[in-house]
């Protein structure tokens, strides 16, 4: 099986039983999310259990491309199971992280790990190639995620970093074990606890840190010295060099290129002040890194939201100058294992409540945070530690700020005004607001989480950043839309799918865009595990006609590694199948159409957008002409959104009254047994 190790590790923590699942039994699902959903379906008989139930199964899956030279596809690991963060039901959900865990798992001879049950005392799992042991973790329990990893490195690798490490009699590696671990937040069952790997890779959404904590699982460590077999090594090398030379960053003429969708010159996805004494740092196999390690050792490998979590407060406190506080605050999130989106939106929320006089010394909600220190390291430490250890009001924060608001009796009011900026499923708003960039919001509410998949955000960033700078956006809207539309297979050449004008955002065209994105990401991003940071590549500013790699690139690397003859559209169809299986699981969990709605403010408060986002541009038609139109100032129409849902359910072949999958749809996808199970439970869409 080229691209596969051939077996999946199954660990029952209750009975401390270690066994194997044959990967072949799940090969039709290819890898990652597809395999994870199928395993979950088979292994969790009662889908209505809660996330912290010992019967919950957590899958940690790789892809056939993990550990290979396929660009931006070697590193990511897909985590699934019933989560605890979303509301009103902790959906069967997913999260995904980079680094080198997936590749190391493959080199050790495993395509994934299935974790079930609950240990009676803290344990960690020590994987050294074939040798797997469940070990006592009492000495690790209580340690932060970085110390835990360093301790495990020492335990597994002895002297560790710097030389060959012998594993067994003959096998050797220079690499430290890849460790995925929880911090104190996970141990204390915080709803917003993450899984952390290396310094800054985390599976943040879903609250999987607490799921592990409830299973008394502190960490999984893996070190491998074996190989990933490749069907066509020459083809893989050739494809990599071709893609890199043609589409990736040109060092001699550095400019935006392969999915540097923010239109910036630099590939680093960090928002704080950067050091000149640093390196660009990449996950294994990546052609274009997005993170850094610097001479201060602060903020190593953190990217995106976690780098913006505290820098604004830091600058505000220090007269516009950023100090080390911003980095240290982020490192604290990584070390205690806490979700950066929750803390970002949550901190903004409690500051708003403080200003309203509702929280703090003058308010009803007692809070002993010293807000005079906001922007200082001391405040960040106090805030993060009170969440991790559930101290004082931190006990509420640890439930996530949506549930905290509910506890304080403020939920209804603060969702009406948007003071609590949580748009979908009780989860923090990402920033690509449903009122503006509708495909992001629709995808999130029709799924299980903030999608956090940037397939179309280029459509906002490129025109908007250019207009902010007072220039004319290039390429023009019509050309951009044409290129995207060509690549939206199997709905190709329908530019109306990319019309973000208010007249079009409830249309069947927009439903197709959302469906395309869900199917594409379910397969190519979450199952084959192409990184969201670099894929899809619709528009590539290094190419003279701007046509990016997407469509051609995805199957080329996949086929070189596996020897299969998968087409791009084969992947889209399998993505649709996986998406349908997920919807069947949500249906069994209790989902119904009537639950599928945004928070109130999305329908009542016009989208203003803060900072630069107050000038939010997307392509759309105005008077029959394609332009970049400003989408601020609108809210979603509740009635029209309901009509949109009907269009979407029809498109997917789901029942329009309930949103449940229909037998015909499931059977056409080869999911007859899923239809049978839904019928048995009275949940099959008529």
């Amino acid at each position: 099986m080229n691209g596969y190790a051939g077996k999946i590790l199954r660990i029952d923590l209750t009975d401390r039983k270690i066994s194997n699942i044959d990967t072949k039994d799940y090969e039709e699902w290819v890898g990652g999310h597809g395999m994870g959903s199928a395993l979950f379906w088979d292994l969790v008989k009662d889908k209505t259990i809660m996330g912290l139930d010992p019967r919950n199964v957590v899958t940690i899956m790789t892809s056939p491309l993990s550990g290979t030279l396929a660009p931006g596809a070697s590193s990511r690991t897909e985590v699934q199971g019933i989560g605890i963060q979303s509301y009103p039901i902790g959906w069967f959900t997913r999260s995904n992280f980079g680094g080198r865990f997936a590749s190391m798992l493959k080199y050790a001879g495993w395509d994934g790990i299935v974790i079930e049950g609950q240990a009676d005392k803290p344990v960690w799992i020590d994987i050294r190639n074939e040798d797997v042991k469940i070990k006592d973790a009492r000495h690790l329990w209580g340690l932060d995620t970085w110390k835990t990893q360093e301790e495990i490195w020492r335990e597994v690798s002895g002297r560790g970093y710097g030389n060959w490490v012998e594993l067994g009699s003959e096998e050797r590696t220079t690499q430290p074990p890849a460790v995925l671990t929880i911090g104190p937040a996970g141990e204390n069952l915080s709803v917003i606890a993450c899984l952390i790997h290396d310094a800054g890779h985390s599976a943040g959404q879903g609250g999987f840190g607490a799921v592990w904590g409830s299973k008394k699982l502190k960490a999984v460590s893996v070190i491998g010295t074996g190989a990933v077999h490749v069907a066509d090594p020459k083809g893989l090398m050739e494809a990599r060099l071709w893609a890199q030379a043609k589409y990736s960053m040109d060092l001699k003429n550095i400019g935006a290129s392969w999915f540097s969708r923010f239109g910036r010159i630099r590939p680093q996805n960090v928002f704080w002040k950067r050091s000149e004494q640093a390196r660009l740092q990449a996950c294994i196999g990546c052609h274009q890194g997005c993170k850094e390690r610097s001479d201060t050792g602060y903020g190593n490998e953190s990217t995106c939201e976690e780098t913006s979590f505290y820098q604004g407060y830091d600058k505000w406190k220090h007269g516009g100058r950023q100090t080390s506080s911003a980095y240290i605050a982020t490192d604290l999130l990584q070390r205690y294992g806490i979700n950066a989106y929750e803390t970002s939106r949550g901190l903004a929320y409690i500051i708003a409540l403080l200003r309203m006089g509702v929280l703090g010394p003058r308010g009803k909600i007692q809070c002993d945070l010293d807000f005079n220190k906001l922007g200082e390291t001391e405040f960040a430490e106090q805030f993060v530690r009170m969440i991790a250890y559930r101290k004082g009001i931190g006990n509420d924060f640890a439930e996530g700020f949506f549930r905290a608001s509910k506890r304080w009796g403020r939920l209804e009011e603060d969702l009406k005004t948007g003071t609590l900026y949580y748009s979908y499923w009780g989860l923090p708003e990402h920033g690509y607001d449903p009122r503006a960039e509708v495909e992001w919001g629709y995808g999130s509410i029709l799924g299980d989480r903030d999608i956090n998949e940037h397939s179309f955000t280029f459509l906002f960033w490129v025109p908007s950043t250019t207009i902010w700078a007072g220039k004319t956006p290039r390429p023009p809207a019509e050309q951009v839309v044409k290129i995207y539309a060509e690549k939206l297979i199997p709905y190709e050449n329908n530019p109306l799918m990319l019309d973000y004008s208010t007249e079009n955002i409830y249309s069947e065209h927009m439903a197709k865009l959302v469906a395309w994105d869900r199917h594409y990401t379910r397969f190519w991003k979450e199952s084959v595990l192409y990184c969201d940071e670099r894929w899809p590549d619709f528009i590539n500013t290094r190419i003279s006609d701007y046509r990016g790699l997407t469509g051609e690139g995805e199957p080329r690397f996949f086929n070189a590694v596996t020897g299969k003859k998968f087409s791009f559209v084969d992947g889209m169809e399998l993505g649709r199948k996986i998406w349908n299986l997920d919807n069947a699981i949500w249906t069994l969990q209790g989902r119904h159409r009537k639950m599928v709605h945004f928070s109130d403010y999305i329908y009542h408060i016009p989208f203003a957008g803060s900072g630069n986002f107050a000038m939010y541009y997307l392509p759309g038609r105005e008077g029959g002409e394609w332009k970049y139109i400003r989408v601020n100032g609108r809210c979603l129409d509740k009635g029209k959104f309901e009509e949109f849902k009907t269009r979407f359910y029809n498109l997917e072949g789901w029942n329009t009254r309930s949103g449940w999958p229909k037998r015909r749809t499931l059977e056409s996808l080869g999911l007859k047994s899923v239809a049978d199970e839904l019928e048995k439970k009275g949940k099959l869409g008529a």
Partner: protein
Amino acid sequence: MKKKRKMVMQISRRDFLKYTGTVAIGAGAFPNRIWLDDAIAAIPASEGYLLVDTKKCQGCLSCMLACSLVHEGEENLSLARIQVLQNSFAKFPDDLTMAQCRQCVEPACVEACPVKALFVDKKNGNVRVVDVKKCIGCKSCVQACPFEPSRALWNPNKKKALKCDLCSDAPFWSKKGGVEGKQACVEVCPLSAIKFTKEIPEQKGDTGYKVNLREESWRRLGYSAD
């Protein structure tokens, strides 16, 4: 005249090679057989070397993946002839090091091999390579390499030694490798942090092999080029 002769005699072979560039050039400039003894002359210098910039490296290990892929037809970090070691939690620049084979002018691995399986491949630019057919799997070369981590590797499946051949024998690559061709690690490195050279690097210490490959354009990424 006498004084000059004495000076030449005092130059070690390593320095001689460093100052003259290559053996071939050296042979043209000096009548080297006059003063090099036969034992040393039997090990001519490699005509190619890999240089790395450890401050430029992004730690993606693509060089390792490419090396294993083109030589072994599979992805295996433990069989990569170039190794990148890094620590997520450490401070730049001590968070990462690169360990490529130095194609030593005085190769301890060649000298240690009891069966001459690790030999100087005169047909391929004098690169130090392993003749797998001859290798008896004694690991003498692995132990003899004076550098950490050892640049001579061990293949536990085949029970044979391995080492960098500058891609002179890369059966799973369609490009011509070796000193007159391309090297997979150099080609694949997204940041051009590995360079091939025909000049013999300074053999003492690391400075000859760990160099600055950051050009002026590097500053556009926001990093110091110094």
